[in-house]
C-alpha cells in the first residue's frame, strides 16, 4: 500500500507545532500501525531528518502508553483496541491518514505525538487505593466471599488501562470515565467501603483541579475506549459522589 501521512510535529512544549505530510510506500497490511511508523522513522533517520516521537511500550494493548488520534478517533478506526493493535489492513491503498496527539488541556504535548498524562497519576494519588499496609498480615483471602456478579463488574472497571482515549474523545475533555472506573472498582467491593466517602470526594476534587472538563453524557468516551469501560461507571461515581457529599 502507498499512503500519505499527515502528522503533527511539535519540537517541544513551547513550540507552536504544525501538520507535516509524509508519503510512505510499500506498507504491508499485516503491519501494525506503530510498525508502519517505525518504517517511516527508519526512513527519516536515513535521510537525516528527525524521527516522529510517539509513546508506546508493550505493543499488545495493555500498558496504555500508546496514544494516537488517528483520522479524528482515539486509537484509530477499529474498535476495542489500542493504537498498537491497529493493523494497516484497516486502511486502503492511497489513503491519507491524519495522526495527531491526544489533545486536552490536562494533557500538554511534550513532543510531536507524545503528551504528558501525569494528571491521571495525580488523580490516583488522591484516592485510588485502599489503605491497607502491605505487610501481608491481613485476613485470609477467602474470609470475605464476594458475589461473583460484583467481582466481575469490579474487574470490568479495573480493566481500564489509563490511556486517556476517553479524555481525547470527549468534547469537554472530561476524565469522568477514567475516574468513574477506579471509583467503581472499589465501590463494588466490600474492601472499598471503608474509605468510599473520602475516595470519591478527593479523586473528583483532584480531577477538577487538573483542568478536565465535565461530563455531558454524549458517550463518545465509551465508544472509543479500547477496553470497553461502560458509561455506567460514570453513573456509579455520580451516585457515590452525591452520597458522599450529603454525608460529608
Amino acid at each position: 500500500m502507498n499512503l500519505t501521512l499527515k502528522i503533527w510535529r511539535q519540537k517541544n512544549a513551547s513550540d507552536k507545532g504544525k501538520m507535516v505530510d509524509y508519503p510512505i510506500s510499500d506498507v504491508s497490511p499485516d503491519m501494525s500501525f506503530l510498525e508502519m511508523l517505525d518504517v517511516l522513522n527508519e526512513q527519516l533517520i536515513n535521510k537525516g531528518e528527525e524521527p516522529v516521537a510517539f509513546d508506546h511500550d508493550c505493543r499488545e494493548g495493555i500498558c496504555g502508553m500508546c496514544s494516537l488520534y488517528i483520522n479524528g478517533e482515539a486509537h484509530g478506526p477499529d474498535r476495542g483496541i489500542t493504537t498498537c493493535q491497529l493493523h494497516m489492513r484497516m486502511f486502503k491503498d492511497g489513503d491519507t491518514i491524519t495522526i495527531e496527539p491526544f489533545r486536552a488541556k490536562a494533557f500538554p504535548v511534550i513532543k510531536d505525538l507524545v503528551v504528558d498524562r501525569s494528571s491521571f497519576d495525580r488523580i490516583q494519588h488522591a484516592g485510588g487505593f485502599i489503605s491497607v499496609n502491605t505487610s501481608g498480615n491481613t485476613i485470609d483471602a477467602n474470609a470475605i466471599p464476594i458475589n461473583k456478579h460484583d467481582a466481575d463488574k469490579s474487574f470490568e472497571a479495573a480493566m481500564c488501562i489509563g490511556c486517556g482515549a476517553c479524555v481525547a474523545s470527549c468534547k469537554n475533555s472530561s476524565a469522568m470515565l477514567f475516574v468513574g472506573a477506579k471509583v467503581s472498582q472499589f465501590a463494588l467491593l466490600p474492601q472499598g467501603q471503608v474509605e468510599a466517602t473520602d475516595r470519591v470526594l478527593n479523586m473528583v476534587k483532584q480531577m477538577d483541579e487538573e483542568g478536565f472538563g465535565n461530563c455531558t453524557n454524549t458517550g463518545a468516551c465509551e465508544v472509543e475506549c479500547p477496553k470497553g469501560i461502560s458509561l455506567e461507571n460514570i453513573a456509579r461515581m455520580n451516585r457515590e459522589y452525591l452520597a458522599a457529599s450529603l454525608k460529608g
Partner: protein
Amino acid sequence: MSILDSKIPKGPLADKWTKHKNDINLVNPANKRLIDVIVVGTGLAGGSAAATLAELGYNVKAFCFQDSPRRAHSIAAQGGINAAKNYQGDGDSTYRLFYDTVKGGDYRSREANVYRLAEVSANIIDQCVAQGVPFAREYGGLLDNRSFGGVLVSRTFYAAGQTGQQLLLGAYSALNRQIGRGKVKMYNRHEMLDVVIVDGKARGIIARNLVTGEIERHSAHAVVLGTGGYGNVFFLSTNAMGSNVTAAWKAHKRGAFFANPCYTQIHPTCIPVSGDHQSKLTLMSESLRNDGRIWVPKHKKDVEAIRAGKLKPTDLAEEDRDYYLERRYPAFGNLVPRDVASRAAKERCDAGYGVNATGEAVYLDFASAFMRYGKEQAHVKGLDENDDALVKKLGQEVVRTKYGNLFQMYEKIVDQNPYETPMMIYPAVHYTMGGVWVDYNLMTTVPGLYCIGEANFSDHGANRLGASALMQGLADGYFVLPYTIGDYLADDIRTGPISTDSKEFEEAEKSVKDNIAHLINNNGKYSVDHFHKKLGKIMWNKCGMARNEADLKSAITEIAELRAEFWKDVKVPGSNDEFNEELAKALRVADFLELGELFAKDALLREESAGGHFREEYQTAEGEAMRRKEFQYVSAWEYKGEPKDAVLHKEDLVYENIEVKERSYK
C-alpha cells in the same frame, strides 16, 4: 572455595526464613525517617518494594522510564499467580510448590530461596485481595483457581487474561498512596544510566530525564534494582519495546556479578513471526493450554495441503492429527513445562510439520474444549446436549469469559477468528531466569545494592514455571526485601544524608555524559534498530532454543564485531537535551551488545542441557535435556573490561531436601 557467600541461614528448611527474620537487625521507626532508598523500576517487584519501604518509614525515590509506574511490563502478564493456598483441596502445600519449582527449574535454583518463595506465596493472595485486586471468583463468592504447566494441582489465581495488570495496578495503588503521603518521590520518564559506588557501597544513581535530557545525580543509603529481564537482547521477544538490561548491566560493570545469563525462557505459545517489519512478539497465555490441545498433521501431504490453502485444519480427521505433547508426555500432556513444550514444537517444525508458510507454527485447538464446556452448560440449562451447534456456541461463551481478551488479541493480529479455526502458535523469547547474582537477602555482590524480581537470578533455576514470575516479583517486593534491607541499613542510622558532591558521583556522571556525547556526535550510517535487529538474529540463530559449541563460538566473535561496528557506525539523530527516543534506544542497545556476548560465553561454558538451556551435544536418546552433575552450580560472572574477559565464580547448589533426579513429565 568460592568467594560467593549466599548467606543461607542454618537450620531446617522450613524454619530458615522465620529464624532469619528473628535474627536480623531492625531499624527503629524514628531512624527509618533518616534513611533514603532508591528503587529503580516500578513493576511488580520495584513498585511493591517502593510502596512497602515507604510504609515502613524509609524515604523512597522511585524511578521508571515509562510515563507512569502503571505501564511497567508486569502489566502484560496474562495467566496468573501461583500460591500454595490449597483452596481446591487437591493436595497442594508449601512443600509441593517448592518441589514443583525446583524440579521445574531443572534443579538449578537455590533451595532456601525457593522454599521462602513458596512460604510467602499465600500471603500475596491475602494482601492483594485486601488491596481490592478483583481476582476471578466462583459463584459461591470464593476465589477460583486454574492449573499451569509442570504441576498436578490447581494453585493459580487469576483475573481473566489480565492477572499481571490487576496485580500491578494493586501495587501501583499502594505506591500511589505513599506518593500521596509524600513518602515516595516518583520520577517518571527517567532512565538509570549508572550506579554510584562510594567507599565500596552503592550510594546512588545517575539518571537521565527522558523529557529534558538532563543528567541527574540521586543519592541514597541503598539502591534497589527491580528492572526486569533482558529478553530484548533477542530484538524480537514478548517484552515491551522499552524493556532493557541497562540498569542491571551498569550494576554488573560496577561490581555486581551476573548469574546464569544463558538461562532464557522461550515460551511455547506465541503468535508466529509474520514478516521483517515485526517489532515484537505477542504471547498467548499458558493458561490456554488448560483447554487448548496442541497438534500438527500426522502426514506430510496434509501439511502441504494446509500450507497451500487447499485443506482447512478443521477438516482434518482426528486420526490424521498428531497431538504430539499428549503422545510424548501422557502424564502432563499439554501442560508440560514451557521448555519441554517449546522444544517439542521446534522438533515437529524442524521435521517439516509446521503448518504455516514459514513452516514455523503448530496448532492450538479449542474445539474439544468448546464441546466439553458446552455439554456442561446445556446440561445445567436443561437444553439439548446432542445439538452440536448449540453445544459449541454455549462452549464458546464459556471460553470467551475465560480467555476473551486473548482471543481478541489473536484475531486482531492474525486476522483469523480463533473460535472458528485453531490458533497458530510458535515459541518466542519471553523471560530470563538469569540475572544479577544475589544472596539470600537479595543483595548483590556490591554492598547496599539489591536486585529483585526478574532482574535477579535467584528462584527459577534453568526454567521458570508458569504463573511464578508474578509470585516472585511480589514476594521479593512486599515480603522479602523490606525485611532483609533493614539488616544492612541498621548500620546507616548515623550516616546522615549522602552527598552527591563527591568524586564518585562526578566520575559516574562524566562517564554517562561521555557515552552520550559519543553517540550523538558519531554521525554514523545506520540506525540503532539496524544493529539491534542484527544482534537479535545472531542471538536467535545461535543462542536460541538449541545451542552447540560451534554456533556459540561464532556468536561470541560476531557479537564483538557487531559491537565495534555499532560504536563506529551508529547514527543517533537530534541532541541530548531534548526528548530523544533514538538516544535512549542507543544507550540500551549498547548494553545488549555487551550482555549478548556474555550470554553466549555462559552458554558455551555450560556443557549440559538444563531447562531452557539446551545444548545439542547433551541430550538423551529421546531428545530430552541431559543434565550433568558437574554443572550443578550457578555461574556468576565478574566484570573485567570486555565480556570475553569476564571471570567465572561458581556457587555450588546443594540439595538437602529434595532428591535430584531425572526430570520427567511422561
